[in-house]
């Protein structure tokens, strides 16, 4: 795929990690969630060359989750690496797993490997832990060679 810069890797990201602050005002990298300190996950993903599939906040999003499941399945079936970044302490990590897992199973896709950020840990250290996870993850080389030409 000459002249194409895609990184072939992406992460499912909860609403709260895409938007560290959900009130008006500047959302600065490293901004803390109320009562918790979390790294700027979107910044870490950007630096590691990952794309993002944003998940909605808690609530009923049946049709939207089905649309997102369609996209995950399309990527998973064509040589793209997909992971999920959750937040410990949020219901389901903010990843809608109870709704998304059956949608993925129905499409022949296993749930993506999951990384959980710990709000009670040091934000900088958590950022480094996330970066290490992201940098170290990809599909097996045989699978990469099959698709990434």
């Amino acid at each position, binding site marked *: 795929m000459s002249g194409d810069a895609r990184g072939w890797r992406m992460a499912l990201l909860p609403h709260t990690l895409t938007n560290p602050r959900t009130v008006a005002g*500047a959302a600065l990298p490293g901004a803390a969630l109320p009562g918790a300190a979390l790294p700027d996950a*979107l910044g870490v993903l950007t630096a590691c060359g990952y794309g993002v599939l*944003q998940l909605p906040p808690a609530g009923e999003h049946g049709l939207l989750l089905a649309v997102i499941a369609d996209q995950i399945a399309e990527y998973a079936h064509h040589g793209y690496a997909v992971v999920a970044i959750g937040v410990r302490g949020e219901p389901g990590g903010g990843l809608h797993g109870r709704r998304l897992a059956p949608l993925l199973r129905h499409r022949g896709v296993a749930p993506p490997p999951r990384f959980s950020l710990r709000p009670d840990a040091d934000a900088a250290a958590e950022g480094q832990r996330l970066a290490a996870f992201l940098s170290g993850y990809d599909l097996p080389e045989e699978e990469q060679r099959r698709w990434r030409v």
Partner: protein
Amino acid sequence: MTHAKVALIANCLLNQNAKVCEGAHYRGVVNPVVEALRSRGYELLQLPCPELAFAGVRRWWAVYEQYDTPAYRAHCRRLAQAIAPRIEQHLRRGDEVILIGLDGSPSSGVRFTSSKPDWGGRPNRPEDDWDIVPRRGVWIEELEAELTRRGLPAVPATGWALDMGRFDEAGSRRDLEQFLDSRGIDPAAP
């Protein structure tokens, strides 16, 4: 009550893996767009990618006319119905909502889309022979129609000029920042 600032952004601005083959200019996130929005306090709301969900990640390049079909428009309407409740919630509570599309895209173009009525058949067109015309892409047309059906006001919109033939990042950044910084300025004010 505090009102949020919300930017609806084309799917591929957060995930360049959604682009058609040879169309990705970044590894993943289009950081200049994210930086410009976050530094101004905008919450990001990623729109679905209509082309990926319809024709897949290995789709051919296409122009507006090839996607202007009843089946593709029905698909776009389904996606619009999936995301519209979230947009409606923001608009109903008085949040500032803007849309950042992808200029030149047959689907996500805002100010411009790609056009070539005679494209079709064997995919062997010479390089970059489509035209850029001032028009919405098919997906943006259907999304706006869905918001109108819900009785919602028009959302101020612009496009990141990624699919205009030759990509100029610095120019695109200036253009986007000008759009963002003009928000909330009353032209009638002294």
